[in-house]
C-alpha cells in the first residue's frame, strides 16, 4: 500500500517517469514497478496522464471559467444525476460537489467568451434541477497542479560549493 502511495505521488509530480525510474527511486525491482503501475491503472486508481500547459504561450485560443451551480437534489440519488448530466459535456474540465453556498463547482473551457456564454445559457442552465449559475472567468492562471505557470525556476546556486 505504501509503495502504491509513493508511486502515485511520484507520478503526480512527473507522469513521464518510466518503470525503470520508479524502480530506482523506490528501491524496488523494475518488474515490480511495472506491475504496480499496471495494477494502479487497472484498478482505476490512476485515471490518466496529462501535461500542464501554459495556454497563452502556446498561443491557443483558450478561455475558461469557474461556474458556481445551485441544484435541487433529486429524492433518490441526490446530486449525482445532475452532476452526471453536466459531466458528460466535453467543455467541462472539472466538476465537484461542494460544501457551502452553492452545490456544484464546474470548470469549463472554450475558444472564446461566447463559447462559454452559450454553454451556460443553452446547456447548463436548462438542465432539469439546476436552479442558478454564477460564472467567473479565469483571467490569468498562476499555478496549476503544483506547477508555476509563469515564473521560471532558476538555480541561483554556483557550480561548486564544498
Amino acid at each position, binding site marked *: 500500500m505504501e509503495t502504491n502511495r509513493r508511486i502515485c505521488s511520484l507520478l503526480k509530480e512527473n507522469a513521464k517517469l518510466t518503470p525503470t525510474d520508479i524502480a530506482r*527511486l523506490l528501491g524496488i525491482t523494475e518488474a515490480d514497478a511495472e506491475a504496480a503501475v499496471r495494477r494502479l491503472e487497472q484498478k482505476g486508481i490512476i485515471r490518466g496522464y496529462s501535461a500542464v500547459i501554459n495556454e497563452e504561450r502556446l498561443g491557443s485560443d483558450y478561455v475558461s471559467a469557474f461556474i458556481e451551480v445551485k441544484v435541487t437534489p433529486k429524492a433518490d440519488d441526490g446530486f449525482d444525476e445532475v452532476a452526471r448530466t453536466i459531466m458528460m459535456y466535453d467543455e467541462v474540465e472539472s466538476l465537484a460537489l461542494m460544501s457551502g453556498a452553492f452545490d456544484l463547482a464546474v470548470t469549463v473551457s472554450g475558444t472564446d467568451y461566447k463559447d462559454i456564454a452559450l454553454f451556460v445559457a443553452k446547456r447548463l442552465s436548462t438542465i432539469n434541477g439546476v436552479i442558478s449559475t454564477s460564472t467567473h472567468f479565469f483571467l490569468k492562471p498562476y499555478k496549476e497542479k503544483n506547477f508555476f505557470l509563469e515564473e521560471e525556476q532558476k538555480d541561483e546556486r554556483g557550480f*561548486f560549493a564544498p
Partner: protein
Amino acid sequence: MVKKINYESLISKKALSLKPSGIRKFFDLATNMKGVISLGVGEPDFATPWFIRQKAISALEHGKTVYTANAGLAQLRFAISDYLKEKIGVTYDAAKEIIVTVGGSEAIDLGIRALINPGDEAVIIEPCFVCYAPLVELAGGVPVTIKTMPEDDFKLRPDALLSALTDKTKLLILPFPNNPTGAVMTYEDLKPIAEILRERDIIVISDEIYAELTYGIKHVSIASFAGMKERTLVVNGFSKAYAMTGWRLGYLCGPAELIAQMLKIHQYGIMCSPTVSQYAAIDALNFGAKDVRKMVDEYDARRRWLTNALNELGLKCFEPRGAFYVFPSIQSTGLSSEEFAEKLLFEHKVAVVPGNAFGASGEGYIRISYAYSLGHLMSAIGEIREFLKKL
C-alpha cells in the same frame, strides 16, 4: 614620492600558508563555460519553506533589525534545546550551553580556536568537509588525519582512532553524516569510539549539520553516550535541514565551561548572528518538521535512483545513508580524480567535484551531489554515460 606597497611582507604567514580550497580551480573553469550541468553544489536545491520566509518578512516589518544577545535570542536557544532533547536525547541549558552562530562553519571555528594551543593535535577524519584542517592550522594546531575506507563504509574504526591518539591530541572532529561520502555512524559504530574517548581528556567536535538528512536510519549523536556530553561540542544548523544556507545560521552546544570561552570569541568577532534569520529559525524548529520530512523523502528517492544509475555505469558506489552526496569510485577508468573531473567538464560539460578536494584519501573518487531535481540528474547521468563510452 609614493612607496610601492609590499603586501607579501604584510600578510600573516598563517594566511599565506593556507592552501586555496581544491574546489576553487574547477569553479573558475566552470564559470567561464556555457551550458554546464553542475552536480557540484553542496546546498539544497529547495528554496527555504515559504512559511519560514514569511516569518522573516514579518520580522522585518516589525522592526526586528537590531542586535540580539551575543549568544542569540533566548527564544531560539530554548527552541534549540527542546529540539536537541527530542532529536538526540541530550539536554542543553539554553542559558549557558548554547551559542547561535553564523552557520555551522563559525561554530566549528569557535570550537577549534577556543581549544587549540600551538602544537596541539586535532584528529580529522578524511574524506571530509574542507574547513577543518585549515582552521586547525590557523589556530596553530596540527591536523592528524585518519583515512576512512570504502570497505568500512567510510566509517571511523576504533583501532584507527586509537592509533591516531597521542598525548598531544586535544580534539577529534567527527563529521557524520559525512560530506562527501554520505557515511553515517550508527549507535553500534559510535559505542566503541565513546568508550575510548571517555577515558581521556579529549574534546569531540561533532559536526552534525546533516543530522536530519539520513535515510532509513536514525542519526545518533556521540554526545548521547554516557560520559560524552561533557566531552562533546555539538555543531548543527539550519542550512541543510531547512534549506537555509544563505541565512547563515547554526549553533554550538556543549559544556558551560567551554561555551563561556567560545562566547567571548563570538562576541568580539561576530557580535551576534543575523537577527532576522534567528526569528525565522524559531519557526523552522517549531513548525518545520513536515517540510523536512518532505525534502528528506525527495532526497531519498534521488539517492536510490542515482546510486543505481552509477553502479549500472560501472562507477562503483557505496550506498550513502546520509547527507546528499554519493561518492563513486572512478578507479576503473584509470584516471585520477582531477583528470576525470576535468575531462568530464570539458568534454561533456558536467561538473563534479574531484574526491581529493576532501583530503588525499578522496583520491580515486568523485563527489556527486543529488541536491538537484530528478530531471537534472537524469540528463547529467546521460552525459556521464556517453563520456564513459568514449574512455
